[in-house]
């Protein structure tokens, strides 16, 4: 293998993995505060289509990015209202968000499918994704607000007793996660593809979800994991090109199987589980008045 080929492959890995980093780091913060949002795929698709349509209609990258982010704020705001104020089941609400997002994005984007656009340079976003992971890592481990987020995720009753606003904290983390997912979608439709197609995120939302668990809720590991997952997917194509006879589907399964193994490993030991997963993940918070 020549140097050019290796650099070429690394370049493709960088470009194709970035959406996983965005969606993953957002979900990580949401889950750190104790909320499991299964709606990533829907949020990504709506973010992708909103950005794309705005760009086609206005030709302005700033507007398209802005509206894409707004779509994430609105949808994740609805999710937050349901699970935080109305105390609905997080799993069912997240699934509803995904199903709704798949439908809504397909409906909105119908007229725009196949419209050509000038894509943005992906390297801006790649740099931003790295900076984001560092800042989230710093935020969660070194700042007071980060500590509050973690406290709310570990034990919401204690956090409440200490005077922290559980609902407000979770609203913010859910909306942060939503915005990150929209950005992931925006990157896919504006930089990576650049085009719109129904269901174009192709299950990346679910991989991002797996990624958070794989990284045992740690930002650094999330970055490494994302590049392992992304690299495996690209490797599969290249290995087949040079004639390796292992079926591609087995490579595609790897992220899910690796996540399963990590899940079993961390949960089989109570201490290890406590050290990795937020204790209040997926447990509804009912304020006693």
């Amino acid at each position, binding site marked *: 293998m020549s140097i050019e080929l290796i650099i070429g492959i690394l370049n493709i890995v960088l470009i194709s993995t970035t959406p996983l980093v965005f969606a993953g780091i957002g979900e990580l913060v949401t889950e750190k505060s104790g909320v499991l949002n299964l709606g990533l795929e829907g949020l990504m698709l709506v973010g992708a289509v909103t950005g794309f349509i705005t760009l086609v209609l206005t030709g302005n990258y700033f507007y398209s990015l802005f509206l894409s982010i707004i779509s994430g704020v609105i949808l994740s705001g609805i999710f937050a209202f349901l699970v935080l104020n109305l105390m609905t089941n997080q799993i069912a609400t997240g699934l509803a968000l995904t*199903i709704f997002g798949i439908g809504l994005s397909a409906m909105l984007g119908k007229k725009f499918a196949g419209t050509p656009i000038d894509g943005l340079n992906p390297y801006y976003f790649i740099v931003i994704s790295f900076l984001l992971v560092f800042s989230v890592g710093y935020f969660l481990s070194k700042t007071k607000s980060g500590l509050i987020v973690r406290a709310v995720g570990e034990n919401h009753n204690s956090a409440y007793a200490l005077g922290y606003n559980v609902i407000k904290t979770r609203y913010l983390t859910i909306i942060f996660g939503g915005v990150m997912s929209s950005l992931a979608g925006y990157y896919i439709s504006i930089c990576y593809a650049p085009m719109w197609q129904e269901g174009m995120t192709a299950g990346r939302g679910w991989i991002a979800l797996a990624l958070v668990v794989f990284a045992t809720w740690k930002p650094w590991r999330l970055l490494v994991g994302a590049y392992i997952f992304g690299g495996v997917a690209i490797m599969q194509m290249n290995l087949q090109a040079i004639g390796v006879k292992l079926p591609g589907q087995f490579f595609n399964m790897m992220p899910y199987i690796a996540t399963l193994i990590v899940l079993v490993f961390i949960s089989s030991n109570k201490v290890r589980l406590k050290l990795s997963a937020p204790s209040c993940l997926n447990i509804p918070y009912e304020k006693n008045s």
Partner: protein
Amino acid sequence: MVYLIRVQLREDYSNLIFYLSPLVAVALTLFFGSFIFLILDLSPIESFKIFFISPISNSYGISELFVKATPLAIIALGLSYCFKNNIYNIGAEGQLTMGAIFGGGIGLLFNDSTSVFLLPLMILFGAIGGAFWATIPAILKTKFNTNEILTSLMLTYVALFILDYFVVGPWKDPAGYGLPKSMPFPDTGRLPVLFDGLRVHIGVYFAIIICFITYIVYNKTLFGFKLKVSGLSSKASQYAGFKYKNLIFYTFIISGACAGLAGLFEVSGPIGLLYRDISPNYGFTAIIVAFLGRLNPFGIILSSLLIALTYLGAEDAQLFLKIPSAVGFVFQGLVLFFLLGTDFLNKYRVFIK
């Protein structure tokens, strides 16, 4: 003067509101749905006619309604066992796929068989395949305390890739022009249809039988009682001496077997062979069906018909209104949002002070 919205836990838990809230959710969905049609520049009344009435205005349409409702009802009935026990098996799509692989595999293995036993064997293996795939999260949950939500979800994608491997690899039809699909099953491996020329098949009977069995299990058996108790409080059920781990196992196996059965019915019924996209998200949509039916067997049958109608209506909308069939997902998502939202009024009393 300041008005504050206050909520208070209801002491008089009302069964009436509990069963009325799905209707409220459906009404709200239609109300918001009409706005969506207005935004798209379509007349809401005409659109609703095309969406909800014209698909079932002839015998073919009614048959199709049952074709779509059958897998949804069977999967949702199975899932209700898990959900009643507060176990979140969200991997029904994977269990469905595994059922199709196991049962369909039998059909391909004996593809020159003329025996009447082929179909029953396929059905049996379909159920075994689904149950097998559901035992994995069950074992992980009971032995290693691993969260079943994430494991069952991950396993869904693994199952989809396994199916993909088979239909592009070893099971690819040599006479299929290289398309990723298997040979058709022999006639003896096809599910009999109820009426000539229509696609509705004997899976409907299975759905009805499973519904009645489930009703009896929930209301007349000790197992049903244990499920109810451990769903309300797993601590209470352990205190009462119920073996909670066994309950988890049984509920997973039942729901997996049901999903596998539904998968086999799809491939040996309307489809007739194995290929990549055997299910339009039935496994995930069945979760909505189960919640909308309030985990009540008869409620699930009704809600499966309603959700099946959103699939049909979406197909007609694509044909006649030129909007993507994914609009059906919008309605499915909305109805679940509203249902979950109205549940709040069930549990809490809201008043302004």
